[in-house]
């Protein structure tokens, strides 16, 4: 639209090439392979697998339980998360610490939270729901909290001067205005719980099989048509929930300029509001630490020793799994950063049909769950030309595919929120379009990119769904090793799992907090340039 100051469409088209190739090979092809294997094994459409699935009472039970646990998790999350959302939308001393705790809880590997809850609760529905809530209070606090912070309190005052009692004013104004964000947060929580794998793998028992667990089992036992049918059922539910979410209205989570938050009037009220959320997130982690430090009723370094012990159920020493995770994480982060960054740049231009298509395919791993993706890789990359299955690269590539949506979603709003007049101003001051882009867009998006990449690293470190199908015994990742150790009897195995979980959790926390800070540093450096 702008004659001179717009980045040329050709640059964006060029940037889209690599992401398009990635979307095609690493996402669309494996998923198409699953559908073909399940519904058209001989080339023509055959829905036997779906029919078998719905005829078996066990499958119906699995589907019902998946919905039940997701609904219960969502309920508990809202119960605990909404007061916390109010508290995080206000200004008070210590708010930053609580926000940081929520950020950490959200990016913590699922198996770490799983093992933390398991250190004081038996396997079962309660443990699963508790762990899901521990993850998702952060989602509710962030989405609803951001919307709440933007509400103008004078609107409620206006309602009161018009005759509404304070509770009535709250209901008519604040609650009504927050309803879309609450609905969105609830649907996202439901989705995460519905497709959850790591938590249920660690905390579930024979009675708590979910669709995701069943897909994994079917894939492992090579019941490929059953896995495909389950995948389809899951996909349908995911699509319906996502459709509901878009219908509920998209709350603006990425707030460019947060208005000055209101000061909380009563510290007691704040404490009461955040206490349940802090407890549900913090207690399991505290117990995990404590149980690792005091394995047999007295403090000892046994956990640290277990990390380097040769004598566990693993084929390698636990610490080596951490090394493998780091190596995979490095590869996955670079791939996700490059693909996601280029994709965000390409998508930030005019919204054409092909760009929307690329966006949709790249986002697919968010919806179809990592186990499904891993299963797709398993059946796609087992023959030439892409016989990746035997190569360790396949695991970090799967991690990257899962992480790309997060990089894109972190960078794209930042690129789109850049005022085109900044670029035009640079243009009238003598900067050619490419130079203007480099001086304006690049530094302004750097922070979001840093956050997105940090998130990608955290995802790779914690990824368990695809890894559970693709990793090999000889080179387990840390989450894989933790789950394996937990599945074996013996104190040494449990202790090793706990020690590994703490190390992995600490590593993830450090990376995420550093990249959020790092973005800040990049910003400061540029300001001085």
């Amino acid at each position, binding site marked *: 639209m*702008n*004659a*001179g*100051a717009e980045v040329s469409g050709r640059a964006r088209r060029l940037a889209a090439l690599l992401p398009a190739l990635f979307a095609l090979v690493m996402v669309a092809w494996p998923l198409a392979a699953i559908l073909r294997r399940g519904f058209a094994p001989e080339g023509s459409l055959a829905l036997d697998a779906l029919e078998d699935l719905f005829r078996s009472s066990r499958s119906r039970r699995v589907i019902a339980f998946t919905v039940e646990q997701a609904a219960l998790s969502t309920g508990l999350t809202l119960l605990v998360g909404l007061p916390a959302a109010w508290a995080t939308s206000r200004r008070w001393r210590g708010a930053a610490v609580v926000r940081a705790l929520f950020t950490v809880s959200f990016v913590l590997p699922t198996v770490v939270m799983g093992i933390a809850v398991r250190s004081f609760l038996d396997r079962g529905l309660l443990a699963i729901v508790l762990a899901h809530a521990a993850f998702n209070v952060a989602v509710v606090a962030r989405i609803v909290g951001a919307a709440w912070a933007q509400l103008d309190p004078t609107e409620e005052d206006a309602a009161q001067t018009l005759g509404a009692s304070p509770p009535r004013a709250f209901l008519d104004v604040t609650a009504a205005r927050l309803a879309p964000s609450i609905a969105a947060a609830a649907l996202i929580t439901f989705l995460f719980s519905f497709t959850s794998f790591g938590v249920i793998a660690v905390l579930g028992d024979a009675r708590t099989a979910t669709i995701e667990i069943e897909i994994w089992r079917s894939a492992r036992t090579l019941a490929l048509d059953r896995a495909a049918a389950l995948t389809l059922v899951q996909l349908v539910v995911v699509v319906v929930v996502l459709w509901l979410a878009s219908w509920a209205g998209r709350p603006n989570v990425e707030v460019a300029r947060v208005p000055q938050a209101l000061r909380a009037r009563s510290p007691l009220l704040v404490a009461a509001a955040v206490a349940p959320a802090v407890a549900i997130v913090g207690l399991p982690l505290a117990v995990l630490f404590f149980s690792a430090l005091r394995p047999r009723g007295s403090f000892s370094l046994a956990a640290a020793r277990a990390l380097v012990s040769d004598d566990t159920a693993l084929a390698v020493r636990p610490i080596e799994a951490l090394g493998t995770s780091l190596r995979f994480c490095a590869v996955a982060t670079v791939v996700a950063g490059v693909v996601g960054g280029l994709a965000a740049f390409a998508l930030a231009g005019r919204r054409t049909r092909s760009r929307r298509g690329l966006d949709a395919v790249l986002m697919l791993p968010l919806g179809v769950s990592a186990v499904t993706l891993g299963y797709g890789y398993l059946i796609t990359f087992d023959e030439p030309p892409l016989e990746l299955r035997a190569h360790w690269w396949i695991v970090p590539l799967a991690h990257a595919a899962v992480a790309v949506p997060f990089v894109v979603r972190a960078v794209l709003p930042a690129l789109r929120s850049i*005022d085109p*007049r*900044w670029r*035009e*101003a*640079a*243009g*009238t*001051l*003598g*900067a*050619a*379009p490419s*130079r*203007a882009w480099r*001086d*304006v867009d690049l*530094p*302004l998006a750097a922070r979001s990119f840093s956050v997105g990449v940090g998130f990608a690293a955290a995802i790779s470190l914690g990824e368990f769904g695809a890894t559970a199908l693709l990793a090999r015994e000889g080179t387990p990742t840390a989450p894989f090793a933790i789950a394996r150790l937990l599945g074996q009897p013996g104190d040494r195995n449990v202790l090793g799992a706990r020690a590994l979980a703490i190390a992995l959790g600490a590593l993830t926390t450090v990376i995420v907090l550093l990249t959020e800070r790092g973005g800040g540093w990049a*910003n400061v450096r*540029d*300001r*001085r*340039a």
Partner: protein
Amino acid sequence: MTLRVERVTVVRGGSTVCAGIDLVVAPGETVVVLGPSGSGKTSLLRAIAGLEPLAAGRVTFDGIDLARQPPHLRHFGVVFQDLALFPHRDVGANVGYALRVRGIDGAERDDRVQVLLQQMGLAGFARRSINSLSGGERQRVALARTLASDPRLLLFDEPLGALDRRLRDRLVADLRALIGATGLPAIVVTHDQDEAFALADRVVLLRDGRIIQEGSPSVVWSAPRDEWVSDFVGNPPAVDARASDAGLATPWGTIVGRWPAGGYRVVVPLRAVSFSPEGSWVARVTCVRPERGGFVVEVDRTDRGSGVPLLVRADDPPATGSEVRVAVRPDRVLAWPVSSVEAAADPGAPGRR
């Protein structure tokens, strides 16, 4: 150093926002493009800067057609509406940006930035963040940033638009002095008639993408071409009147003078009426309000109210309810035959922000 805009048409989103505009800006001249929001003035400015493609017509500078010159090669300094300061750079880096693009580095750039900041009364501001500045300071940073690029033409889009009334009144004089000091041709786009008359050597009135009237501020002010222009430059609302041999019959009384017989729309500007014992109209004061160093008094006829107040300026206003005599200067009354009013289309209030 002459800018020529010839029959420039700009189309945006399928609708024509500038329709065949002709405009010449001579060296050292300041032209103010005045119009309500949506009149196409910002699009015209952007088209001159090269930020908006031309659907037709051409823009030349020093006789050279700029069609193939992208914005970054035109050396036109633009001060954007809301300024478009780079939020991720400090004051010094904003001001020095044009120098940096041109490869002027280190001490030389710092020196020139210092000099500009000094000129703008912003000495010591180089390391300040943009977000820490007041409205007036941001304004001056934007000016300094533009001047640092050594422009051959200055383009201002609502330069004082973001500021509050009192600051605008103060800064408008500064801005005039500054533009004058550069000796550069300048185009200022604004919706505010006070700002326009204070800055302009020449005023161009824009409405619905077309030039309605053009001339020196005093001409546009004292002889608006039609009722719409009169209203837009701040005159009282027009009333219906009828001309006969006796003069112009208005709701308040007859204005003695010679007008061809027929229906008229009439505006009695503040400068056309005064309180005077010799005044031919007898009226009653309905309201007194202070305005700009004096008072504006609303009066209406004594017998039965006409419903439309007549506005009179006064230094010593009479009391509300008192009876006064009002004198009208026929030569300062604005009257348009009704047929020409219809031609001007939509005499309703112009959209003002």
